[in-house]
């Protein structure tokens, strides 16, 4: 603070507290909804304070499953989401590291063509080419499995650009020294480049994990087998199942479970998260 202006400071705190309250309100309602039973739910007005059914609902969601996905427990959907998020994040980082390494450290014919081919993917969000991509995946026989869920989402221009940027700041002396010591390209990559870009990899991982976990349209299209449902799309199936009288208490419980892992990642790894967000996007 520069000068003493108690009024301005009070005003700021009031605005911020209001902001936090507005941002948190939906989550509070979700939590409250998840802690009541089916009898309390349809009574108007809905409660504003939590009930005592939280763990019963938790168990119901985990063991019995909800709505249309009845046979499918929330636990399995969360497991599918986890595998999908990890495969997308890990895959994107791996192929981007390799291609950035090739583009920065090698001179070879068609280098710039490859660079532009990667650049183009930056411009084509999955939503706009969804139908033809679906056809490709169907022709490759990748419907209803983890490969189909993840591989089409793995190519990423942003990650490649970020690693390119990081590698360009690595001093040339490191490569010269490594060469004098007789290290080949892969040795240099493994023993020098990977360790120096450690924090960037971690930061990117946080962002990509959230990206992968929150995928919706893609899993919705390519999974028809209930054992492959992910939790984010599972919620939609539950809403659809019960157009007449949704089991709101269980839906809210599932909603809560769907957002806990990514939210924990954001809050727990806040520093890496902010680094990842500001560096990949800008």
């Amino acid at each position, binding site marked *: 603070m*520069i000068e003493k*202006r108690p009024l*301005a*400071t009070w*005003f*700021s705190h009031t*605005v911020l507290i209001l*902001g*936090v309250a507005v941002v948190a309100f*939906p*989550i509070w*309602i979700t939590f409250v909804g998840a802690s009541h039973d089916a009898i309390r739910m*349809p009574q*108007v007005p*809905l409660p*504003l304070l939590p009930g005592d059914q939280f763990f019963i609902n938790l168990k119901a969601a985990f063991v019995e499953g909800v709505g249309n996905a009845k046979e499918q427990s929330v636990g399995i959907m969360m497991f599918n989401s986890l595998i999908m998020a990890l495969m997308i994040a890990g895959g994107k980082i791996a192929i*981007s590291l*390799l*291609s950035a390494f*090739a*583009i*920065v*450290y*090698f*001179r*070879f*014919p068609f280098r710039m063509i490859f660079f532009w081919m990667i650049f*183009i993917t930056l*411009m*084509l*969000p999955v*939503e*706009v*080419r*969804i*139908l*033809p991509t679906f056809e*490709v*995946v169907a022709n490759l026989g990748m419907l209803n499995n983890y490969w189909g869920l993840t591989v*089409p989402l*793995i190519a990423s221009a942003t990650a490649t650009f970020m690693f*390119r940027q990081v590698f*360009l700041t690595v001093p*040339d002396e490191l*490569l010269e020294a490594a060469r004098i010591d007789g290290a080949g390209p*892969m040795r240099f990559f493994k023993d020098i480049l990977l360790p120096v870009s450690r924090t960037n990899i971690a930061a990117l991982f946080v962002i990509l994990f959230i990206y992968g976990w*929150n995928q*919706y*349209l893609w899993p919705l299209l390519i999974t028809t087998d209930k054992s492959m449902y992910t939790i984010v799309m599972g*919620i*939609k199936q539950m809403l659809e199942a019960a157009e007449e009288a949704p089991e709101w208490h269980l*839906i809210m419980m599932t*909603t809560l479970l*769907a957002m806990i892992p990514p939210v924990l990642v*954001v*809050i727990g790894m*806040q520093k890496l998260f*902010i680094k990842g967000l*500001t560096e990949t*996007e800008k």
Partner: protein
Amino acid sequence: MIKRTHFKSSPLPYLLVAPQILITVAFFIWPASQAVYQSMLLEDPFGLKSEFIWFENYVLLFSDEIYFSTFLRTVVFSSLVAFLSLSIALLLAATADHVVRGTRTYRTLLIWPYAVAPVVAGTIWMFIFDPTLGIVSYFLHGIGYEWNHRLNGNQAMALIVLAATWKQISYNFLFFLAGMQAIPKSLIEAAAIDGAGPARRFWTIIFPLISPTTFFLMVMNIVYAFFETLGIVHAVTKGGPAKATEILVYKVFNDGFIGLDLGGSAAQSVILMLIVITLTVIQFRYIERKVEY
């Protein structure tokens, strides 16, 4: 750009880029070119026969009043989401930057909606505004305002704007706050010595200095509202009632997968691709120039 010292050409770099290029060709370039090709075909819904008709699908689209109103609706929706989430985030970032104690705590409490999936955000807001048992619609009823987004198109639009804005505030807040904290404190102090109060300092120093961030966020928010909100629309309104919330990306999805109008849907995809490419180019040119004062 390439390193001054680098490895000699060998088969190795091709192996290194191979996975990336394979996936790019199979899942990006090939489907995108398929979309362009399909957009010039007239296909029957069963895919049995098709006829090459050049740009007729586009001509049909541009003369279609429904498409035009969807386009307008998308523009209104995106502008509302971008404007609301940017201004709320700017206010919160400015106040968080102003207070001495608690900036980090407030930041922690404000950034986590970023992690919530759009469809999850939509589900929660739908529950809160449910016409029969939602808590907010109950209060609105209490003050004499009837809320039913299943019947009232404007209310349905308001609901998806609200859900989309809520989710985007944290992203904008983070970038604004980072931009403000990068401004040298000496500038602000000099202005304070000259007698400028907090509001004046904000409009004459802080706001102009973060204008590159603001511009970047504007583009990102429009891209978000155009494409990533599909989950919200799909879960909350399905484009209804009576198409009141059908935005472009939802129409592509709906016409292609449910209406099975493959040519028309592909033509819409191509138009959307052109919009994204334009936005990306604008953003890159602008970032290179950077606003300076």
